[in-house]
């Protein structure tokens, strides 16, 4: 019983917050802003608690596994959820459906926590569904906008399809190995054609969720249609958790067929980088822009998975953490501007530095970090993935991938230049709310220090 409580403490905490919100909703006893502050506080508290102590006993007969790295990955997801609750307080406070939004997001978070800890394909499938279905409902929360419903529709259809593909792959894995347990399957993997096909189905499902090319088509429309916090959640938390699970599967269960998936991954990496970059070049809408740039970032995450050695999972976890900090800062600024002025197109950001120096610098810093420019942490995170990708010795492949950094520099810098150009356009001086200011500052400190100082990476490395 004690193991049940302590081993799953992160999940218990998320569930407790979820129930609290539900109870308050039923009792109608709290003002919007009080409820939001309470959730912010509870999320921070549970992030901190989730970092303490760890119990590694498998639960439910191996369905639920909790290693130190998985525990840390869940803390990262909780941290991201806390940052989202801080950064998007404008939208959240004014939303007429705050409790529904919180409940949906927290259930999805709960699903992701279970997913990261799953030790059985059945568990993986169930938690994945718990993680994605609430997001489709949340994408629809801007009830007045048609685009929001359109995005939600696209998200639910593509998730349903990819879940079907996943289930199909799972059934083949079960058929060839006779088990759903990760450990047993790993022993039964021999790279037979049927298993290769099964792997491709599984991988396709993950590629869908992470919006890797050629399964990315839903991304831009869904991002553009969804409310800003939901977009941010889909873009960082959802992708991050998928990356955690995928690297775990590739380096664990499917390790013995790495020769087969390495080449598959090469193709997907290059396609994802090139397509993400080329589309990002021409976007005029800030959300669509961030959508395509995040596709390109997924390309780098997959690149880091290609080297099969223990450094891979550390590099991916570190990258996801840095990516959360960088991308959320960009989303945070965009959300603030959008909530106060309704502006979402990039040319209108011209001269933001004049009217809002703080926001402009935060945006610039996050774009530097996304582009991988030192001294920001994004540089280190990306370099580790590239060094890891080069481990197999296919340098032409890594060169082709790394050239994309030069391409991406063009569109990231285009926006930075715009921010500091004159004369300024229509955005008036905006005063961020205290929670938004705090969130942006946490991102900024993280982006500047998490790379120059190696503590965070070293910590991740000791967990693995």
């Amino acid at each position, binding site marked *: 019983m004690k193991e049940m409580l302590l081993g799953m403490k992160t999940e218990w905490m998320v569930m407790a917050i979820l129930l609290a919100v539900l109870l308050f909703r039923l009792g109608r006893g709290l003002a919007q802003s009080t409820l939001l502050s309470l959730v912010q506080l509870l999320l921070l508290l549970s992030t901190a608690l989730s970092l303490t102590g760890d119990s590694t006993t498998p639960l439910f007969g191996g369905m639920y596994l909790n290693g130190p790295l998985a525990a840390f990955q869940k803390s990262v997801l909780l941290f991201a959820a806390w940052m989202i609750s801080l950064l998007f307080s404008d939208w959240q406070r004014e939303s007429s459906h705050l409790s529904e939004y919180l409940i949906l997001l927290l259930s999805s978070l709960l699903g992701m926590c279970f997913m990261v800890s799953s030790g059985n394909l059945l568990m993986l499938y169930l938690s994945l569904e718990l993680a994605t279905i609430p997001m489709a409902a949340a994408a629809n929360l801007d009830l007045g906008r048609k685009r929001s419903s359109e995005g939600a529709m696209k998200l639910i259809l593509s998730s349903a399809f990819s879940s079907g593909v996943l289930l199909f792959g799972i059934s083949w894995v079960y058929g060839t190995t006779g088990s759903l347990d990760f450990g047993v399957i790993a022993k039964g993997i021999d790279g037979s054609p049927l298993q290769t096909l099964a792997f491709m189905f599984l991988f396709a499902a993950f590629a869908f969720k992470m919006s890797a090319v050629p399964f990315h088509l839903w991304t831009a429309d869904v991002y553009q249609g969804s409310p800003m916090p939901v977009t941010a959640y889909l873009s960082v938390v959802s992708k991050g958790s998928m990356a955690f699970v995928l690297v775990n599967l590739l380096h664990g269960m499917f390790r013995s067929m790495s020769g087969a998936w390495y080449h598959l991954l090469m193709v997907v990496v290059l396609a994802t980088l090139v397509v993400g970059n080329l589309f990002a070049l021409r976007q005029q809408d800030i959300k669509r822009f961030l959508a395509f740039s995040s596709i390109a970032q997924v390309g780098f995450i997959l690149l880091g998975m290609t080297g099969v050695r223990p450094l891979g999972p550390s590099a991916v976890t570190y990258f996801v953490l840095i990516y959360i900090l960088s991308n959320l800062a960009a989303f945070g600024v965009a959300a603030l501007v959008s909530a106060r002025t309704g502006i979402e197109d990039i040319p209108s950001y011209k001269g933001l530095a004049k009217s809002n120096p703080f926001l402009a610098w935060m945006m610039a810093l996050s774009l530097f970090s996304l582009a991988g420019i030192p001294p920001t942490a994004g540089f280190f995170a990306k370099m580790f993935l590239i060094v890891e990708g080069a481990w197999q010795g296919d340098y032409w492949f890594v060169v082709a991938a790394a050239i994309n950094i030069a391409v991406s520099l063009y569109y990231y810098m285009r926006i930075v230049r715009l921010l500091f150009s004159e004369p300024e356009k229509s955005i008036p001086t905006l005063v961020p709310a205290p929670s938004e200011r705090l969130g942006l500052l946490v991102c900024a400190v993280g982006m500047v220090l998490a790379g120059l100082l190696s503590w965070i*990476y070293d910590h991740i490395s000791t967990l693995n």
Partner: protein
Amino acid sequence: MNLTAILAIPTLTLLAVLLVPRARQARWAALAGAVAQLAASLWLLVHFREARSSGDSGFLFQWQHAWYADWNIQFHLGVDGISVAMILLTALVVVAGVLVSWEEERMSKTFFGLLTLLGLGAYGFFCSLDLFAMFFFLEVAVVPKFLLIALWGSGRKEYSANKLAIMLMGASVAILMGIIALMYSAPGGQWSFDMLHIAGWEIPADTQTTIFALIFIGFGVFTALFPFHTWVPDGHSSAPTAGSMFLAGISMKLGGYGCLRAAVWLLPKGAVAYGDTIVVLSVVAILYGAFVTLMQTDLKYINAYSSVSHCGFVLLGIGMLTKAAVAGAVLQMVSHGLMTALFFAVIGMVYARTHTRQVSEMGGLMRAMPFIAVLMFLAGLSSLGLPGLSGFVAEMSIFVGGWERGTNFHQAATMLAAMSIVVTAVYVLRAIGATMMGPLRQEAHSSLTDAAWYERVAALVLTAGMLAMGLAPEWLNELVGPDAAAIADRLAAP
């Protein structure tokens, strides 16, 4: 001498520039920091000479700190004579660059912050002994260049800034691949980015040649290796004055130093294999750059194309692979850094007064601004290699080193390169004559003022460096010579 000071001072300067309460105070913070950096570099020079004269050799004042152990990355600092010369050059150019931008009022905090950051990247680059840390600092210096040109530039600034950023980032990718491949080529899986370790490895010749090509081309782009020089004229001419000075005086030297340190020193067999190719490309750059300069009518373009020609000498010295030539390459980097920075500073001063950079619209400016005219003469004469100024020492050393190789090919290349001096004399003297001498071409120019105090100080700092190098070349030779010889010895070339 603790080398961390060389990095700590610019870092503190950067913080001070960003944190001062009023925008107009940023320039004072930047200047104070720049002077402190110059003092620290001089201090480093003195201590380095002391240590060397007491018999220490190799890399001195080493400082090591574990950074990312998983990835074999550490923060390893250390300097030899070549690095000290480069650090000194950087410090001089930073002081001058801050001073000539004294009246920059638009977003001055950001402007001086970017200048300081660029300088910080260069200092770190020159004293890193770990390839990854070196690459890190190289990249630190790229984005400030882009923003300086894109935001404070003139003319086709967006085009130039993008071209520069994309070419330099592409080059960085080549360098990155080179250093990762080098790291993984460790014998027995003893991976390391540490150059002192790598220098001791036995790397097979074919691996060396492949990696050498990647690293050398990558750094070559930074220092205008033909045919990858095309960002130079656009970048230099669109940049603000201090930006051009930093580009020519510091940024192009990152490339030359990188070619020497990361490519030639670590991969001697690769250098021997590609030496003649480098000679051919650099002779093409020298002559092509000189002849293209002849046709330019814009002062900044004249100086930018002449930089292509002059940086060709750096690569020529490296490609010749002899002690004197390699030492000459380093001297040429210092010399070109100083005189081109001075030239760009003068062009900036002239432009600020006449609002034109076209040679044909000026004339007789010496009557209105004698001080500036004298500076232009000094920079020009150094550029055409007049004895007594820095250019002569460097080019002479390269020619001697090239001739020493003894083969017809190398002697012919040396002669061809030497012939460019005639062309240089033509364009330099023509430009100075047309702008400074003769009667005043425009009446309005008679009322122009001469250099202000900050411009005078900036120019004097650079001129002092040029004269010190030209009149007493021994001290720089003593500084650079032994370490250039150490590099050339590894080449085992004839």
